[in-house]
């Protein structure tokens, strides 16, 4: 069976005053059905850009999608008309868990208003196509509304919001950060999507709450068989949540492996630096030497070559092809490190 989502050769640039920044340089990514994939890389490597490309909400301009495909269940999302993307894909097939739980609910509407608005348009019981009415005046059939409300209450219970009825009448500022994150997770689950895109969903929360919420999210998506693309700059959180990890460096995916294999046999020089940069038990942190390259005039070939201890002359000329040292483990490197656990 083909994967649920497949991104192939995706090139995305941002037009800036200094010229076009090549933010995604032919990215490939696959997500299987029910699979939770962690997209890991340093800040600025293009995780959010990739997430928004899949959702079709890149700001264009300045963003330009130069080439590539994004297929969801055999539909090429990049050629889908904007209207169809909004009506049938976003909020239905693909939902989103935002990064900033404090700012991601509209401050001047009750939580219930916002969740019921979502259900009005995206309820699994409703039709994907909007009628002739301009959005504001579209009626919300009473019967469906009642059924949707029951679903909403159940979803709030599932994410462990106390007293769901009362919660619907409150405003976002009356909830803590962790509770707000639970609310947006409930919204992402409510419409029964195939794929959830969670863009650094817990970075703003403190560590204990972060762990609780990740465990809850993992349980809920596994129960429902929903796939997740989870972006993070933190390998530790990816480890808690994911089945597989994809590492990206400066807009190029460099290595992808199932979680156990990933931590046991990392092979790409950048992946190994990333693992070494995790805080040690004694609290020390080893920085990756060198700097993240500028993306307007990025290094050619493998973008890691200016910082790579293994680099040879071919590395700066062509991007290395995909190598599969083992089923499920993809690698793009001319001179991988021996596949031993890092120290």
């Amino acid at each position: 069976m083909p994967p649920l989502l497949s991104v192939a050769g995706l090139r995305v640039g941002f037009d800036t005053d200094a010229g076009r920044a090549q933010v995604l340089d032919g990215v490939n990514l696959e997500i299987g059905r029910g699979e939770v994939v962690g997209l890991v890389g340093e800040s600025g490597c293009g995780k959010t850009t990739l997430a928004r490309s899949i959702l079709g909400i890149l700001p264009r301009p300045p963003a330009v999608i130069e080439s590539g495909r994004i297929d969801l269940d055999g539909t090429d999302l990049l050629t889908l008309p904007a209207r169809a993307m909004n009506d049938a894909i976003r909020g239905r097939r693909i939902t989103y868990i935002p990064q900033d739980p404090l700012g991601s609910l509209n401050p001047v509407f009750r939580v219930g208003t916002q969740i019921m608005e979502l259900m009005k348009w995206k309820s699994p019981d409703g039709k994907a196509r909007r009628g002739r009415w301009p959005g504001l005046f579209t009626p919300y059939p009473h019967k469906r509304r009642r059924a949707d409300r029951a679903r909403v209450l159940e979803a709030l219970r599932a994410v462990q919001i106390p007293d769901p009825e009362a919660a619907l009448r409150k405003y976002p500022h009356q909830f803590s950060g962790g509770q707000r994150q639970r609310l947006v997770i409930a919204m992402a689950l409510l419409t029964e999507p195939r794929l959830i895109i969670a863009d650094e969903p817990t970075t703003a929360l403190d560590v204990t709450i972060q762990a609780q919420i990740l465990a809850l999210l993992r349980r809920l998506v596994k129960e429902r068989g929903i796939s997740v693309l989870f972006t993070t700059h933190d390998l530790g959180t990816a480890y808690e949540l994911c089945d597989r990890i994809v590492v990206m460096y400066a807009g190029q995916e460099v290595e992808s492996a199932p979680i156990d294999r990933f931590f046991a046999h990392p092979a790409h020089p950048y992946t190994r630096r990333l693992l070494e940069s995790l805080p040690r038990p004694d609290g020390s942190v080893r920085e990756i030497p060198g700097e993240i390259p500028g993306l307007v005039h990025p290094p050619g070939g493998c973008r890691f070559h200016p910082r790579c201890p293994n680099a040879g002359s071919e590395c700066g000329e062509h991007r290395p092809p995909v190598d599969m040292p083992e089923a499920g483990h993809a690698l793009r490197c001319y001179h991988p490190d021996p596949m031993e656990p890092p120290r």
Partner: protein
Amino acid sequence: MYLLTFIVKRLLWLVPSVFGIIVITFVISHVIPADPVRLAAGDTATPEQVAALREELGFDRPLVVQLWYYVQNLVQGDLGESLFTGRPVVEDLLGRLPATIELTLVAMIFSIVVGIPLGVVSALRRNSLLDHVVRIVTVSGLAIASFWLGIMLQLAFAMHFDWLPLGGRFDGFPPPTVTGFLLIDTLIDGDWEGFGNAFSHLLLPALTLAFPALATIVRFTRAGVLDVIQSPYVLHERAMGFPPSVIVWKYVLRNALVATVTQIGLLFGILLAGAVVIEAVFDWPGLGYYAVNSIVMSDYNAVLGFTVWAGVIYMLVNLAVDVVLVLIDPRRSAA
């Protein structure tokens, strides 16, 4: 419940505020080098006659005593008599009130109904032709003096094209007074022709008055929308596939309106001041016109009465604005 205590508190604050306005106006009108009594007595009056009138009006007593009497009367709803019309100032004011309120309200409603959508659309189509045109219009709205604009409109539409009347409020006999608003009274009377008559008189002064208000509302709405569409909650709404029109006209607009509504409160003061000038230009029989005449004639009770009225209205409007702000943005009620 919170709202109710809030309103009551603010209403109580009205009392010291009005008192402050009276004191300031009182002092100013007594230090300006004009002698209202001499003017009121006329050119032919002898010094003795002037002195007698001065005593009769109480102008010979200390300022504090005069103030005391004024406030005492005010509490009983008496603003004194106009030195020139010879009638109670309250009557004069009440008689002219509807004309001014009608003018100001129509200008305000026009600038809100046109300004908010225009601000939203120019924010969404940033740097489009429409946005540039809107920017030119709003900059001129704030830069052009109202009286000049009024005179230009008169020259164009009243003199050159002769489409609209030059000034005044109504030709012929006005309809029976019910509300005092001619647009409404003519309709109540079923007099469509009269409605057109009143409307054609209202059009130019209302547009002149509305222009700077429109400019401000467009500017603040546009800025508010631009600010709000960057926010993480709008990103969330878009990522979840809410229809774009629902996002803009419901979820963005309500947030963006906070800045606009605050401005509308401040604008009302500008509108009241503007009405003074514009009523003079368009011969509009309202309070502004009355105030101008009173100042020119040093008709001191009338000036004071107008000032108190304007102060109270201004404060009431701002109270209303604060209530609306709490209704728009629930976070304010916590503060």
